[in-house]
């Protein structure tokens, strides 16, 4: 006959059983914790991927800047009658009173490739002429090319002129007024010289808005903010070497109009305040998941578009904040994607559903 367990045996058995049960529980808890961590990391990765994809979508479709299907989210379509925002349709913003110049349509023609051989696109001004301190010692090139049809060049320039080449300058002026400086740089060819003859104050000399030097990063309404040391016609590399032109994404109305004619200092001589101004002006940030469980990471994607050193940049960032560890991580990258002109061609002109914002056939 088997005898019963003694007290010592029972105690040992219970202790051993407890150890085994505890180990099993600890094992389960560790496994469960590992699974929870893995799930959390997987969720974090998924959110990060969602942010990455959202940033690329925004780079391609510009929906945060101008929601094509929602008129209440089209901040950059207005204007004051002379200056316009970058998503205003050219049917409004590029509708000059003169229908023809130099025998050519004085409007934006979307299908025009601006071929290099065509004299229409040749710059005929005097590159050596200064804006601020000229004495016209090389003559009055305003006689050849000008914004106006009959500029009064004064006695030195032989009075009223009849410049033969006005089309290019009027295209440039029209683009500047219709799009602002960022859009102007994109729509003009890469080798464009940024100056036109004719100013609101005087028919003689370069337009001050195009080439007069102004203090860096402060003044609105001047393309050239290089300082007082250079007032010659320049290309977009030099124009955007020390300050850049960005697409304003956080302003609307008059503020946006001003910001589209504003340089932002981010290169040499810039400080943290300048960089902060750039972030405020140019960076669009939004939560990728507006509604999310509290234990999911807070993911934000942001996109900034600007032209600096003559190069167009679409700079994206995905940032996520872990609610568990508090870690903040940012993935920053640039991408080649839809340009402003491409984005305008993705959108329909409200006044003519068969046309895009540039006046071309709508082909989304």
């Amino acid at each position, binding site marked *: 006959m088997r005898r019963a367990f003694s007290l010592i045996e029972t105690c040992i058995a219970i202790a051993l059983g407890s150890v085994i049960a505890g180990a099993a529980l600890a094992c389960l808890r560790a496994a469960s914790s590992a699974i929870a961590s893995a799930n959390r990391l997987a969720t974090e990765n998924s959110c990060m*991927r969602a942010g990455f994809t959202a940033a690329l979508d925004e780079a391609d*479709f510009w929906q945060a800047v101008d929601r094509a299907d929602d008129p209440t989210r089209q901040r950059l379509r207005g204007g004051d009658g002379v200056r316009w925002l970058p998503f205003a349709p050219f049917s409004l913003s590029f509708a000059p009173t003169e229908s023809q110049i130099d025998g050519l349509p004085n409007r934006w023609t979307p299908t025009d*490739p601006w071929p290099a051989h*065509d004299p229409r696109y040749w710059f005929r001004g005097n590159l050596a002429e200064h804006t601020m301190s000229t004495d016209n010692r090389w003559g009055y090139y305003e006689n050849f090319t000008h914004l106006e049809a009959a500029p009064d060049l004064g006695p030195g320039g032989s009075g009223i002129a009849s410049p033969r080449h006005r089309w290019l300058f009027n295209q440039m002026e029209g683009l500047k007024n219709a799009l602002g400086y960022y859009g102007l740089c*994109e729509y003009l060819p890469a080798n464009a010289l940024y100056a036109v003859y004719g100013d609101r104050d005087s028919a003689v000399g370069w337009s001050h808005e195009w080439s007069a030097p102004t203090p860096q990063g402060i003044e609105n309404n001047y393309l050239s903010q290089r300082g007082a040391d*250079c007032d010659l016609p320049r290309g977009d590399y*030099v124009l955007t070497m020390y300050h850049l032109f960005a697409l304003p994404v956080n302003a609307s109305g008059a503020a946006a109009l001003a910001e589209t004619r504003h340089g932002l200092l981010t290169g040499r001589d810039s400080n943290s305040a300048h960089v902060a101004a750039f972030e405020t002006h140019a960076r669009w940030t939004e939560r990728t998941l507006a509604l999310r469980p509290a234990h999911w990471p807070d993911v934000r994607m942001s996109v900034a578009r600007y032209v600096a050193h003559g190069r167009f940049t679409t700079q994206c960032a995905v940032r996520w904040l872990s609610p568990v560890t508090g870690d903040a991580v940012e993935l920053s990258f640039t991408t*080649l994607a*839809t340009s402003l002109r491409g*984005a305008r061609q993705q959108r329909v002109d409200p006044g003519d559903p068969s046309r895009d914002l540039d006046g071309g056939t709508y082909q989304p």
Partner: protein
Amino acid sequence: MIAPRWSRTARATRDGTVLILVAGVAAILAALAIAFLGRMREDAAESRMITREAQARIMLVAACSYLREASRLGYDDPATPTVHEEAFGWVDVRDGTDGPKTREDASSNAFPVGSVARCPMHLWTRTRFAISTAACANPIADESSPDFGRPYLRNPDPRPAVDNGWPGSVDAARWDDFARGDPRPRPTSVGMAWFRVKRIASSRFVVACGGGGTEGWRDWNEVAAAGPDAIARFGHREVFDALRDDEPRLWYRVEWSPAVSDNMYQLLENRIHIDHYAWRAFNASQDFGDGRSQAMNRNPVGTIRWIQRLAGEPADW
């Protein structure tokens, strides 16, 4: 001695309980492991799609580079070794007609409107005119050498990746091999990405970018129409369709421009208080060495004027 019946039953009950407990714990662990593996697999699959999306987007850069280079370069005719034909742009910079046309043949147009170029982007085993990847052709000798500390240029640098006999008797016996390269695909780069361009106007193109293994074929019908070699690449329609369904495809419309860069930084920015106009004149070559004249402004292949992502697959690409 035979144990009582009740005792055998009790032990069997205990054994069964332990078995159930162990099996239960094992099942829980197995379920957790399977869930974990499943989640990781799902994660990996999603990551792979992101990778393919990124590869497809890289193809947009490749396509734009292709359009720019094809506008001016790549038309050299091996049959005329003393003449190196150069083209003059998609819109000819001389007369505005459609190009690219060479100087020798004004009627030529290698890529008329409607043409399609399909470009699978695997790596070649060795590209044309490849040079050796040896980083240091003339290493400094160690202390035991009489040449120690002396940077002698005993070896040519760079050297071709194809052996030309150096340091023995150098000859051109393998020149053709050097010039032709080795076009066999590197296995690790096959089926990852492609782009395809269709010319839709003088300077406008539809660009398709893919991050998968279809090599830029639009659909199986196109593969079948291309002939047995193309069919052999995939074997069966189902294989092609599976590859197509597994790859991201992006479509863009782009326009090329003959305009190249702007006037240089040093040309108009600096030296403005003297007669820079003459000193750094356009097309001057006297400042070639320090890069301050337009002669150093090398971008002969044009620029991309604008890019438009298309919302969906266009009717014709």
